[in-house]
């Protein structure tokens, strides 16, 4: 098990755990993800066809129009949001989505999380400590 520390968006006590979905490209929650299904739909996106719902979503950073926050909020209101957001780089509209919807989000880790975490790994996200525990798929 690896433990990584980053900066937590939600400071309150919250621990969630689930399966990681690692996406190498930037993610746009407005138009890049279908808020009806939770599928990544962006053309020429490496994660196209994957579903983010209920996942620990691991991605470099958010992108898209400034409506990205509303895209995330609509996804959340439709019960299709990820369980937690883990990013390398902080992007304001993604943070706003996490703040408004109360989704655990940690960013700015000491290592590149896209290399450390693999899709299918089991992740425990501790918001208060700003810490994630990574249980490799094969060890579960």
């Amino acid at each position, binding site marked *: 098990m690896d433990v990584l520390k980053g900066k937590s968006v939600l400071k309150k006590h919250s621990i969630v755990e689930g399966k990681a979905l690692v996406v190498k490209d930037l993610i746009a929650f407005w138009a890049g993800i279908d808020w009806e299904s939770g599928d990544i*739909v962006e053309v020429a996106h490496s994660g196209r066809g994957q579903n983010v719902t209920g996942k620990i979503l691991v991605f470099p950073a958010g992108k898209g129009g*400034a409506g990205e926050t509303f895209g995330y*909020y609509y996804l959340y209101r439709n019960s299709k949001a990820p369980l937690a957001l883990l990013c390398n780089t902080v992007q304001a509209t993604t943070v706003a989505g996490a703040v408004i919807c109360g989704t655990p989000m940690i960013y700015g880790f000491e290592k590149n999380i896209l290399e450390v975490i693999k899709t299918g790994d089991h992740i425990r996200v501790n918001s208060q400590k700003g810490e994630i525990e990574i249980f490799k798929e094969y060890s579960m």
Partner: protein
Amino acid sequence: MYLNKHQQQMLDGKHGRGSQKAMEILHAMGEAREAKKMVEISYAHLMPPDVMFFPFGRQGKWGQELMRDLIQDIDHLSVPATIEPKFVDLNIAKQLEFSEDEIQEMNQIMESAVSFYEKLGVIPTYSALPFFVYPGKLNQHISIAESISILWYNTMFGSRCERDDGVISLSAAITGCVPEVGMHITQNRHAKVIVKIKDELEVNNFADSDFDALSLAISRRTKEKIPVISNFPLSVGKSYTKLKHLLATIAVESGLPLLHMVGITPEAPTLEIALGSHHKVEEILIGEQEIREAYDIACTARENHIDYVLLGCPHVTMQEFMEIIKIIDGKKVHPNVKFIISTTKLFRDTASDMGYLDILKKAGVIITDSMCIAFAGTRVKGTIATNSIKGAFFYSGFDQTKASPVWFGSTKECTHAAIEGKWIGGGKYGCS
């Protein structure tokens, strides 16, 4: 995070529930980003979801609910504010395939939101290009919710704004402050990657859509790192239209708030200054192959047949009007095509004074203003031609069962397509 007395009073609810909610959100944003304090802003550009973001059906109600706490007892804003386009001009909503029920619902949700913001004293720009109404100043802190404008204010004026969304920008306008993070801090504004344009690209002869393609090519390589373009010809900085095409695309495709252009933008008089403390940064080369690849990504259509030509993401400029007029004067839009041009009120009035609107109407072009053609155009069934990769991004995104195939090319190519009823192409790097 430090709050001054007035900010603390707002957080404690001493100025009402709306400003308390606004300060709670900004405070949470500041804590999330480890801000030391708030910074005072002098201007905000608003993006209310109940005005702009599909204001009907479930998401229409969600948008209203999201804003309800914030606006419940607000009767003024702390700073001057402008506002984003409306979702759709209800007069043409039917032509964009919205049902009567949806139009009625939008009329209720959108118009009540619009009248609320106008009563607050918001300048009714209904524009994604508010800098034509409210230009920025160097080092001025502001809050902008519109991706191209965030980029424009930071890049072209050297003003300071984060990528704020609709909730944050309204909270900022209510309280008059934002957390001091990201682009508000000098050292975060330096470039982290150098972009070099290969000599084989004749940027001076670029069609407008070539700037979109260049911008997509840059975005896909620099990702979340602020780039500096080291060898752009200075002519790029002299054309609002070229800049619009360049900045609109990178804003959506990279999620960046800022881009430097050496000799063009105020914080990049030299490459060294743009890079600040960053040394030995990666250098990315963009040439013909990268531009062609960007066109291939943006063009998702396979058949030449065209149903819609949608121009105006962001709004059609005077230069674009002129290009369209040159081609369409005396001709007619093909009977199977709906050609819709979306601009701002300002440009529409100017185009009218110049006699352009008469020519366009005679040709069968539908002209509208103050609406978001990128969002409102996502409903149509059939193949869309557009001169905007930002538009193409929205038309081919969202719900895949409703996504439209897109031809992406220059304003000229789109105008020819509208007349012929099919995509001909002809651009140097583009799709055909």
